[in-house]
């Protein structure tokens, strides 16, 4: 999937990946896509929930070598 900015949160536990995502999203412009890499299983539920409550668009998750690549588009 295409993306504009990448955020590596490997090894980090809840709530840090979401906190870092929220901070990183502030740097993006509307329409840009953030790719978050995480090995926290909880991210599968957390990121869609975070996106819907912040009004951003959750684009999907890919599982790559035991990690999750999560894509979110800034509203």
């Amino acid at each position, binding site marked *: 999937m295409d993306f504009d900015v990448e955020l590596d949160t490997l*090894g*980090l*536990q*809840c*709530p*840090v990946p*979401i*906190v870092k*995502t*929220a*901070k990183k999203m502030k740097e993006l412009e509307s329409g840009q896509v953030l790719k978050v890499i995480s090995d926290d299983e909880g991210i599968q539920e957390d990121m869609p929930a*975070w996106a819907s*409550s*912040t009004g951003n668009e959750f684009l999907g998750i890919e599982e790559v070598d035991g990690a999750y690549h999560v894509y979110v588009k800034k509203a």
Partner: protein
Amino acid sequence: MTEKATIVLFSGELDKAMAAFIIATGMAAQGMDVTIFFTFWGLNVIKKDKGKIVGAKNWMQKMFSKLNRGGVSRLPLSKFNMGGMGKSMLQKIMKKEKVSSLPALMEMAQDLDVKFWPCKMSMDVMGIAKEDLIDGVEKVVGVAAYAAEAANAKVNLFI
């Protein structure tokens, strides 16, 4: 309008404080305006780790503040503390599992503009002055200030 959330942190134990701060940072990351109201034992979480407690005025408060020194490094576990042995084991496990420490979570919370409101009445009872609390405490408040915040909040938790 930004959604609000409040947490009353009444407990002064490491595990409960961690729960409070994980929830607070999670909600703040969701764009919510979060306030933590520290009362009674919860004040121990935001007491300075080092130095003398200057707020204790009479002998009872002085004795009390010795027995209840507080500070983030001194918080026990609510279960299986075992004189600190259980706590140090849990901290080792958490480090291995890469869970953020309580000081790191608190710093994250301040970074996300989570407001720290200590309860004035508890501070008076326990002999705690504002100088005894960590930096970044927004303001010392009473229950009315908390109630006004809670009335406008969607989520209100008591921990």
